């Protein structure tokens, strides 16, 4: 192996010129460094939030009302936890079925048609619409008429999730082999039957994990909620009545206050929110790894 036959030059790395080897090494080092450059601040943020947050988060913090005066130290964030869960759930109920059906249209019905192409392109464009614009949009079409409520916030989050769900579902439906579609059509199944009982179940794990990632993204968003849900200091279970609150908006508000108690609550809310988002993300990853269709 190592002996070089006569007439051929030695191409092993030992024969590479010194400056070329040095350049290669520098490039390799830079690539490794770039991983560190991203990892170090991330660790700083996570460790800091965990340290500050763990000092305040306890069952009482997660359940009791937000103090009437922001100056007051102590817990809690109960209304914001409830608000985040409720608003995100409502947004999911609206955006996920709509997004899956839209993706079904694009991949199963509209193949190759202009309209389907336009919908695909526009859902890509819609995915790039800034979240604050989604908030302004719901403000102009909903809040101006019906006032601020949890539901208005859910509408804004749903508008944000819709293109993400469409895109991830679309790519999952494309992975379903055509043999399955042709086979069930040959057995006499109608098109809707093929889609509902064969194609969607085959793609279900991927669709679930993609949708969960969209939910995680929505749960962490603040900007769409700023002008849509208002502010509340007690739990509001009525999605259509009166102002509500969420963890992200509480972090945003309390971070800007100069009071130690408010800032502590902001760190506690940040830890709670990160945990919620991470749990959703991890569940999504586990589902997609366990059931990946290859």
């Amino acid at each position, binding site marked *: 192996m190592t002996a070089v036959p006569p007439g051929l030059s030695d191409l092993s790395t030992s024969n590479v010129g010194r400056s070329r080897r040095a350049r290669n090494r520098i490039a390799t080092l830079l690539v490794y460094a770039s991983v560190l450059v991203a990892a170090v601040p991330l660790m700083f943020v996570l460790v800091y939030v965990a340290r500050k947050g763990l000092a305040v988060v306890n069952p009482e913090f997660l359940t009791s009302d937000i103090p009437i005066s922001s100056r007051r130290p102590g817990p809690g964030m109960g209304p914001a936890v409830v608000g985040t869960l409720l608003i995100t759930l409502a947004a999911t109920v609206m955006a996920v079925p709509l997004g899956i059906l839209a993706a079904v249209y694009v991949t199963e019905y509209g193949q190759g048609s202009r309209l389907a192409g336009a919908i695909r392109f526009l859902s890509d464009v819609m995915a790039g619409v800034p979240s604050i614009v989604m908030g302004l949009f719901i403000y102009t079409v909903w809040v101006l008429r019906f006032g601020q409520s949890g539901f208005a916030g859910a509408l804004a989050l749903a508008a944000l999730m819709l293109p993400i769900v469409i895109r991830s579902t679309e790519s999952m439906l494309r992975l379903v082999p055509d043999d399955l579609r042709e086979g069930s059509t040959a057995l006499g199944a109608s098109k809707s039957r093929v889609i*509902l009982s064969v194609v969607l179940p085959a793609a279900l794990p991927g669709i679930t994990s993609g949708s969960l990632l969209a939910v995680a993204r929505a749960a962490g968003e603040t900007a769409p909620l700023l002008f849509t849900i208002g502010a509340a200091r007690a739990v509001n279970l009525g999605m259509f009545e009166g102002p509500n609150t969420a963890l992200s908006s509480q972090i945003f508000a309390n971070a800007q206050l100069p009071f130690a108690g408010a800032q502590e609550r902001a760190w506690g809310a940040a830890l709670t929110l990160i945990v919620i988002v991470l749990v959703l993300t991890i569940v999504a990853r586990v589902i997609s790894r366990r059931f990946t269709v290859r």
Partner: protein
Amino acid sequence: MPVDLESRPAPGPVAAGPGLAGARRRVADHVFRVAALASGLSVLVVLALIAGSMAQKAWPAFRHSGLDFVTSSRWAPNVEVFGALAFVAGTLLVSVIALVFAVPVSIGIALFLSELAPRRLRRPVIYLIDLLAAIPSVVFGLWGLLVLAPAIVGVYETFGGWMESVPVLGTVFGPPYNGKSLFTAGLILALMITPIITSISREVFDTVPAAQKEAAFALSATRWEMIRGAILPHSRSGVTGAVMLGLGRAMGETIAAALVIGSSPQLTARLFGSGDAMAAVIANQFGEAGGLHRSALIGLGVVLFAMTIVVNAVARSVVRRQPASARGGR
């Protein structure tokens, strides 16, 4: 013995012929098709509604300010003067700062994942990027405001001191030094757009044909020479698209910037001083705005919407030109 199949009565409504069941099935089929089409159209409807409703509410401010809305940098809501140039410039400055830091790092991580990483390091680094993408922007903003901003002023002062006698840089990196500044906002945004640029670049790098890489190695290229000669030329348009998607995200990112940018409405190139960006202005002023001021803020949203649409549409068409598997995003 031949069986007469024809004369046998059909056992129940199984056959797909033109019976009652067939009709019901066709109706169900049609209903489902229409539902799917309607859902698909909802994207068009929402986008049209966004543009229409916001333009309508912004119209009073546009009519009031005319072209000054985007060419003047005087923003004085109390006397109803609305010139958003400083915010447009701030948005672009912050986004460029974010790209300057995020692009090399993201391409480095993408190269690490697709070419260099040992098997057991690959997965942890992928998780790291996922984690970075999962952290809510308001948490980055909180950390940036309460931890990074106070700590980084010293760095700004030192660096500004070094640059003092250099002609242009002396101004750009000169005083006033403020922890809440355009530069701090750019740094935080860089962290936030790194995952998106990384994941798309990696998918683009993975589409480079193995034959081309092996050909480069066969010509006795070092790994770096293989990257420069085979991978980068092949991926140029895909990575350009990834960078533009990152730019679109940075321009629209609101909350983190709103917390650390310093909120001062002036046209400035002093990166270590406070400034403002479109999304941040909307977030910070909307609550206490009324009448024409509110209309002007919605107008700011319209301008931001238009800018991000253009950037994203161009980015998408660049990325779509790549092979199917190179299209990224979450």
